[in-house]
């Protein structure tokens, strides 16, 4: 792509911001390589196609037979796909997985989705990877395991459950009174650190870590419950309260 002058960039941004959602979608579609693959304007090795989706061979495969299954419609991320289409695609993915096991005689398959750039999503077109696997193929899709304390689990669960209940219509949207991403962050830090530190010093580093995790909620709780006395609240207490 040729370099654009700052003026051109600005003009383009201006233009984009004035587009209607339909125009914007058409614009994205026009510039999306995967939409062009779907339309046959860019050549590909199509394995499967129906009204909703297309499966092609990945040109940079993790293993021979690695397929990309994508909706024909341009959806940038998974939550934008209508329920029916996603269900249909998952069933196609299941069938493709079966084809891999049967035809290529592989030992297993991975179904993999990257949602968002940070998760490794490269294209602005949602897709689902179906990857054939054989022992010792060098594909690293193991899911690491880390330790987590019960109180951390409880805190995360509380936040997720509130959201999940809203999404599944079990509870009406409510404004969380205490929006403290710090608590979550501190939990994240702990996980991070546990990962970094190796086992030998486990005991020694355990304590300061715990303190850190407890400190922040303590402060927050103290603020919230200032009138009610008891500034000494730990994450464990929070966990108890949530039962």
């Amino acid at each position, binding site marked *: 792509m040729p370099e654009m002058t700052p003026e051109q960039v600005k003009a383009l941004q201006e233009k984009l911001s004035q587009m209607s959602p339909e125009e914007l979608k058409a614009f994205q579609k026009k510039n999306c390589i995967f939409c062009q693959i779907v339309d046959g304007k860019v050549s590909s090795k*199509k*394995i499967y196609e*129906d009204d909703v989706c297309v*499966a092609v*061979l990945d*040109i*940079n*495969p*993790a*293993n*021979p*037979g690695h397929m990309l299954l994508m909706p024909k419609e341009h959806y940038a991320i*998974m*939550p934008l*796909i209508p329920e029916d289409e996603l269900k249909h695609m998952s*069933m196609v993915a299941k*069938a*493709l*997985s*079966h*084809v891999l*096991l*049967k*035809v290529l005689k592989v030992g*297993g*398959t*991975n*179904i*993999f*989705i*990257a*949602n*968002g*750039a*940070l*998760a*490794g*999503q490269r294209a602005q077109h949602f897709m689902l990877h179906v990857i054939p*696997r*054989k022992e010792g193929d060098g*594909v*690293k*899709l193991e*899911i*690491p*395991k*880390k*330790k*987590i304390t019960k109180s951390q689990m409880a805190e*995360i*669960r509380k*936040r997720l459950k*509130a*959201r*999940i209940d809203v999404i*599944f219509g079990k509870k009406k949207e409510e404004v969380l009174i205490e929006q403290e*991403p710090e608590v*979550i962050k501190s939990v*994240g830090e702990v996980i991070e650190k546990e*990962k970094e530190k190796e086992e030998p010093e486990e005991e020694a580093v355990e304590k300061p870590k715990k303190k850190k995790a407890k400190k922040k909620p303590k402060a927050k709780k103290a603020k919230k419950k200032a009138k009610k006395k008891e500034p000494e609240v730990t994450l464990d207490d929070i966990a108890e309260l949530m039962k």
Partner: protein
Amino acid sequence: MNCAICELKKSKELLYEDKDVFAVLSPEPATFGHIIVAPKKHYQIIEQIPDYEFGNLFNIANKLSTAVFEGIGAQGTNIIIQNGVEAGQEIPHVAIHIIPRRENDGLNFEWAPKQLTEEQMSTVELQLKEGAKDIGGFQKEEKAEPIKLDKKPEKLKLSDQENYLIKQLRRIP
């Protein structure tokens, strides 16, 4: 036989549950907020699940993934199914992993692409195309038949009652 995922199902701290599916926080998370979504029935690999049930499972996984963004402020999610031991499956019970992603979380699910010749690609293409041509006719969920009543419920004779009520009304001065 003890299945670790069947054990998780008994947890009192499920995130989600319906008649076929449950979701719970992973006890050994890859990142915090790592969710395991699984069918309640002990299917070992996805080939054993009826199509519609897999569709529902996947749909729920999508919704839970959204919750991860909104509920704990993840900036991305990876959704992974390990189908078969050689694909990294450790517990013989189908599960979908939803892994919240953040900056510098130390995870990396990228693979080095394998270099295949044009001929190798074409061979795989032909093989898979042949195998995929029968895809379709997915199993649908059996809807419960509407209950047929042989006898029509007898109609209530309301006339007497009405009369009675009217009479009552009239009695009021």
